């Protein structure tokens, strides 16, 4: 590969993010014009990725996945804006007026498109506002339910031991699921509870979230990632190894129940 020797060392430092701002600007200017150096930069990044692969360590904690899935479930998916304008090109000089005329036509088209997009955006904003309000209401409910100052009272027949009890509120169309559970036994080491949805079509049970109860045995699972359009027949909680979610329930069944 024929790269420019005067930039050879700097390319590696650029890939590492070590150059000063001035050096970066100078090199980026050169990279815009030099495909060989661009290819070498990509190859150096590849070499750096090999260094990354030498790292070994513990797997991320199970809660990290739950946190991510909850975050993406809560994040509305707005359509991407039109593709960003490309990088600057040098064809202006050669195409001259023809390019300018094409740009005028393009601009007219873009103005029309922009007006249509503005209407779409206004609509989406309105929808988003509604969803944000709904989410706030749900969050308020969850906050209230999980507030440590809340005093939960469960009424039972006298002298009966507290039994685990769960309630699942599932809406197939919006794939929303809120699951509240109380009086669960404390977890043994390296174990976690896992919620399962059993479809009415007899399909395999679907993992609906890992969770650990608080000191009082209470826990909440809110909107775990679920496939679309699944009708639920039953829900169940099992005791599983901490590294999850799992493909299928294998551990001890703790509670289960179906729709009424």
């Amino acid at each position: 590969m024929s790269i420019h020797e005067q930039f050879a060392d700097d390319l590696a430092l650029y890939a590492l993010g070590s150059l000063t701002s001035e050096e970066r600007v100078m090199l980026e200017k050169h990279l815009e014009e030099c495909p060989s150096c661009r290819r070498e930069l990509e190859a150096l990044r590849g070499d750096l990725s090999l260094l990354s692969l030498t790292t070994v360590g513990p797997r991320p904690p199970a809660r990290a996945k739950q946190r991510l899935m909850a975050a993406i479930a809560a994040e509305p998916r707005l359509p991407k804006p039109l593709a960003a304008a490309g990088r600057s090109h040098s064809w202006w000089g050669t195409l001259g007026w023809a390019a300018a005329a094409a740009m005028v036509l393009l601009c007219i088209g873009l103005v029309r498109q922009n007006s249509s997009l503005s209407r779409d955006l206004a609509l989406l904003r309105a929808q988003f506002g509604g969803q944000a309000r709904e989410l706030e209401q749900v969050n308020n409910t969850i906050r209230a339910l999980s507030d440590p100052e809340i005093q939960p009272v469960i009424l039972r027949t006298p002298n009966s031991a507290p039994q685990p009890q769960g309630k699942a509120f599932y809406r197939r169309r919006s794939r929303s699921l809120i699951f509240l559970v109380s009086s669960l036994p404390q977890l043994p080491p390296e174990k976690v509870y896992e919620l399962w949805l059993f479809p009415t079509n007899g399909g395999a049970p679907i993992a609906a979230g890992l969770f650990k109860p608080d000191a009082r045995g209470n826990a909440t699972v809110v909107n775990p990632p679920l496939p679309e359009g699944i009708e639920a027949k039953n829900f169940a909680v099992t005791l599983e190894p901490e590294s999850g979610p799992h493909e299928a329930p294998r551990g001890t069944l703790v509670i289960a129940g179906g729709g009424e």
Partner: protein
Amino acid sequence: MASADTNAMTSDLALVTAIRSGDQGAMAALYDRFSSIVYAVALRVLQDAGAAEDVLQDIFIQLWRNPGAFDSSRGNMAAWLAVIARNRAIDALRKRRPQDDIEDVIVSVETDLASETDRSRVMEKVRGALQAMPSPQRFALEMAYFEGLTHVEIAEKTGEPLGTVKTRIRTGLISLRKILAA
């Protein structure tokens, strides 16, 4: 490329395509496949489980928001995420704004990294290459990569001329490439 690798590669792209259409299950599958690499790199750089988890979270959320940032022209997904994880972790370590946009990162790796087996094989080879490297070169490379030290800082720390440090870093990286190509 072996067929298993091709399947793995196709599957990465298929997952990204599904994520583009808002498929949360595909996002979960992609996370299962690559979270260990991203987390291990971030943890090695930051030496702090909480901070590494934040980097992990940040990268996958960005991917969810902008799955188009990755396409096959950006290189192998494992390599691409590994580079982004390192860069984001260094940004976090230095408490600075991200230095590059994930859309601008293109990674070219000649070696197959699509499957777990490929990655393990490459890991062994690279480790061997690092062990075989002269110590000053290995230290310079590791300080630059995992500690995020600039060539100036490394030169100050080791008392070696700046030019020597710069060249060591580049030749060290290229020697990894050559060992894998051999």
